[in-house]
């Protein structure tokens, strides 16, 4: 296997994303997520998921990613857990709580990191149909919520201004659709590659 040159080692990338994501919950960077919903919802939360995802990539040992496999056949348990965690932290109520209550914020950090980790574990072992179940739920959910955040006149989070809510709604919708498109392209490519192999 040829490795691309000058790429971050997986463990360094995971550590970097983790430090940045957790750092946003601690002073001095904390003021960013306290003042801007964009920093909180569109930057920190996805970064937490990403750092969990990258960390799972560094799991080594006798069977690596196949560990815990019996608990996560076809990635089903992981997809369900990740969907719940992500939906939970998209509620305006919980976003407010994460800003105000340090306990809620640490729960947010831990659970979103966990969601990222189990997602990678799930994607690794899920057939395309189940991946589609996850993406087909998560992407429309986040997109719809993003569009709602961006278009409603109601201030949904007491912790953030309407302006901030609108921008993060747009950001959330764009991010969700981007990830959906990315997955679609990846899946189509993989399907093409495997059909070529069997020809």
């Amino acid at each position, binding site marked *: 296997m040829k490795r691309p040159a000058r790429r971050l080692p997986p463990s360094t990338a995971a550590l970097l994303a983790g430090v940045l994501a957790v750092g946003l919950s601690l002073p001095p960077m904390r003021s960013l997520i306290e003042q801007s919903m964009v920093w909180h919802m569109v930057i920190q939360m996805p970064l937490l998921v990403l750092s969990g995802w990258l960390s799972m990539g560094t799991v080594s040992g006798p069977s690596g990613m196949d560990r815990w496999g*019996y608990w996560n056949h076809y990635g089903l348990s992981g997809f369900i857990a990740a969907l719940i965690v992500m939906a*939970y932290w998209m509620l305006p*109520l919980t976003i407010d709580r994460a800003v105000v209550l340090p306990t809620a914020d640490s729960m947010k950090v831990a659970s979103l990191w966990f969601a990222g980790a189990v997602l990678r574990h799930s994607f*690794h072992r899920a057939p395309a149909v189940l991946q589609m179940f996850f993406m087909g739920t998560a992407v429309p959910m986040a997109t719809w919520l993003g569009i709602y955040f961006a278009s409603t006149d109601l201030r949904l989070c007491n912790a953030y201004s309407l302006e901030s809510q609108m921008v993060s709604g747009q950001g959330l919708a764009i991010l969700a659709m981007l990830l959906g498109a990315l997955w679609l392209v990846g899946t189509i490519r993989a399907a093409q590659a495997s059909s070529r192999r069997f020809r």
Partner: protein
Amino acid sequence: MNARSSRPAEPATAGLFRTFSASLAALVAGLVLMLWTTEGGSAFTTETARRAAVERAPQPLPDFSVVGADGEVTTLGRLFASGGRVWIVDFVYTRCQTVCSALGSIYQQLQQRILDDGLKGRVGLLSISFDPGSDDAAALRGYAARMRMDVDVWRIVTLTSAADRRRLLDAFGIMVVPAPLGEFEHNAALHIVDGQGQLVHIVDYDSPAQALALARVLAP
């Protein structure tokens, strides 16, 4: 494919059973957590949860030293206790151009209704400025004049000590966030405080008729 390659000694059905139990556990735990957080699916925002909590149990309010437009220093507790009136309380800052001007005109209408319905002395209006830094007695006087406040119905006060600001806002459940152009944004609502100085209802600021009806029920 990957699943099959791991630990071939165990039958696949054992793995499926564990996976289904784990999925079910996650689903149930998630559902319980969601219902618990949203109070059975009824509150998705902090504002609805705050209002529901007050409806369930009246909330006693801590006391604060305040100063009025006349420069007279008193406490919120003494103000609420005076005359056993029911108060409709809102939060403002006098520089406000946005939602507070809407609140201001709603309070003007409420003042007129209270006078028309002969509720003077039974239902009072209180505006509390959460910006004691720039709202001194003179600023409050200016606001009172602009709004044509009738002192017997409608009062405006602010904190004498800016250090109390956080505690006051927490007591009522108000969150103030800075907005563009030096303005503030906050969850504006009408807060009904009974004769015992307890917060008993929170009503949307665009439903003044409902606020007045609720206050009238509680009024002596």
